[in-house]
């Protein structure tokens, strides 16, 4: 077999319940990448076994996963529910001020004990049998541990200290908190690489964050489509009429589609320009461009320059579960929570900075209409990704094209008419997945 063919073990519980014929079919499934990086097979997005391996090797593998903002946990005892891949975790601020990330799964009978989205507690008590954990996940109480009247109870050898919640490796950079299942992780700065780190630090510039609210929605598509959509500057000038009409992004704008050395992270960046500067030929190509449209609330598209950056818009895709949105002055975190190959959940955390006056906060909230599940652009992206997943699920075992910008095989490109960043992501993905 050539190197681009790989076997992924079928799930063992399926083997047991299914008959031998289906077993054989499952075992015979071969994951063949068709040629080079310019064509992506649909099974990458639709296959249950591929998804299971992604959870193991990517979300629970050597990656830093976004879990929350320190601004959401200002006081000891504060907690938020979050996710690493599909796995429910709790992020806590312990009494000593440290931030801890633990699995939301009681070691006793596996109950997801924390049900509130956020709150403040002294300890976590599993409601089923009241096993109790401190804010770092140490098991500190087991009711009737010695039984009643000398009968029952836990074995004498049961040592609480050996049965805490599964604790994850935690790091925090400029108030943004990440967790990893691996203890041998590189530093966050090394993980991002210098160029993507620079963009990260342009948004998280040291000012204290102020959370303005959340959105949550589920999307009927594969989680990687969200990364790809933000590594695909080509779509932005074509799908998003709104963006183009009002000059936020047009073909020919100064722009950059950056990737890190590994190919897993990316930053789509552009500088706002006036639509009157667009040439007639470019307008013709951009079917989305419509002459003479104007907003009544003109303040909406104002850009207050508050960042040390040449870009008015940056969309950073931080592998594997974080998008940082800096769309002029509307700032947001988007956290990807995969839920099988065909669905994922997005949790958005919109923020501003301590010190924003009322008018600046209002400006951020007004500009927030661009993004999110009801955003002028956001809702279009959600719809487009759904269309893609429908296309892949309903015509099985095909592949599709990412051939734009052949001059760059995979990596950073300074033209918007490029899919080189998507190819870079798949170069990395194939390496991690062994396919």
């Amino acid at each position, binding site marked *: 077999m050539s190197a681009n063919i790989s076997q992924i073990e079928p799930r063992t519980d399926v083997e047991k319940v299914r008959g031998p014929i289906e077993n054989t079919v499952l075992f015979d499934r071969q994951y063949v990448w068709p040629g080079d990086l310019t064509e992506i097979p649909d099974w990458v997005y639709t296959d249950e076994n591929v998804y299971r391996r992604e959870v193991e090797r990517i979300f629970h593998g050597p990656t830093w996963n976004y879990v929350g903002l320190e601004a959401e946990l200002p006081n000891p005892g504060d907690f938020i529910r979050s996710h690493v891949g599909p796995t429910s975790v709790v992020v806590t601020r312990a009494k000593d001020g440290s931030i801890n990330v633990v699995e939301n799964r009681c070691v006793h009978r596996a109950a997801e004990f924390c049900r509130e989205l956020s709150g403040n507690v002294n300890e976590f008590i599993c409601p089923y049998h009241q096993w109790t954990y401190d804010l770092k996940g140490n098991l500190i109480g087991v009711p009737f541990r010695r039984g009643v009247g000398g009968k029952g109870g836990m074995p004498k050898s049961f040592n609480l200290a050996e049965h805490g919640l599964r604790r994850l490796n935690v790091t925090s950079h400029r108030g943004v908190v990440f967790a990893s299942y691996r203890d041998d992780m590189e530093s966050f700065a090394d993980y991002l690489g210098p160029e993507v780190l620079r963009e990260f630090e342009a948004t998280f510039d040291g000012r204290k964050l102020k959370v303005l609210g959340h959105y949550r929605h589920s999307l009927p598509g594969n989680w990687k489509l969200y990364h790809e959509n933000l590594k695909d500057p080509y779509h932005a000038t074509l799908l998003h009429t709104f963006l183009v009409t009002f000059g936020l992004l047009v073909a020919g704008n100064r722009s950059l589609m950056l990737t890190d050395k590994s190919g897993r992270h990316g930053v789509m960046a552009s500088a706002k320009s006036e639509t009157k500067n667009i040439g007639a030929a470019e307008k013709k190509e951009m079917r989305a461009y419509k002459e003479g449209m104007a907003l*009544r609330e003109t303040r909406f598209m104002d850009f207050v320059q508050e960042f040390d950056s040449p870009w008015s818009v940056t969309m950073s895709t931080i592998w594997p579960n974080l998008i940082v949105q800096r769309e002029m002055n509307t700032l947001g975190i988007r956290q990807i929570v995969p839920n099988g190959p065909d669905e994922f959940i997005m949790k958005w955390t919109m923020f501003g900075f301590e010190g924003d006056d009322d008018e600046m906060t209002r400006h951020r909230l007004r500009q927030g*209409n661009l993004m999110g599940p009801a955003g002028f652009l956001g*809702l279009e992206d959600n719809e487009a990704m759904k269309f893609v997943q429908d296309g892949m699920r309903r015509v099985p075992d095909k592949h599709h094209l990412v051939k734009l910008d052949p001059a760059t095989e995979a990596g950073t490109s300074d033209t918007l008419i490029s899919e080189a960043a998507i190819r870079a992501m798949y170069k990395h993905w194939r390496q991690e997945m062994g396919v």
Partner: protein
Amino acid sequence: MLDVSSAKTRDARLDALLLYQEVNEFNAAYAAALDEQRLIDWVEMFTEDAFYVVISRENADHGLPVGLIYCDSKRMIHDRAFALEKTTMFAPRYLRHIIGNLQVLGEAPDGAIRARANYVLIQVLYDRPEAKLHQVGAYHDVFRRVDGALKLAERRCIYDSLLIDNALCLPV
């Protein structure tokens, strides 16, 4: 003890009933405009300085201001309608807004009428069999009269269904 027979009390009760009916009819017309996707008609149901926001119960309960849709003037409500009609791409769909449990909470001396009502938004996509309950929530409203007619000076749509199914393409 309330003397229900006195003319004064009867007039007050009739006024309240008429106002209740007027707000009810307003809400029915509002739902019809959205169900028929007559968005420019929807815009005209607001005052010039209107505030319209669609906000999760999670945010509202925590005093966080972020809305799915956030408009602090009729100009922005107009831009929302205009953008949806002229620029935005989404799959075709039918919507039903069901508004009920209206409570008229009071009329201030300046004429502002506070009210609330529950709403249910049902969405049908052309290629799916089910009519899905897309959003459940409550309107927290302030009405004012403009040339005698009721208009919304404020409608805060606080939704309970925190996890939105893909996207909210049209207003509630």
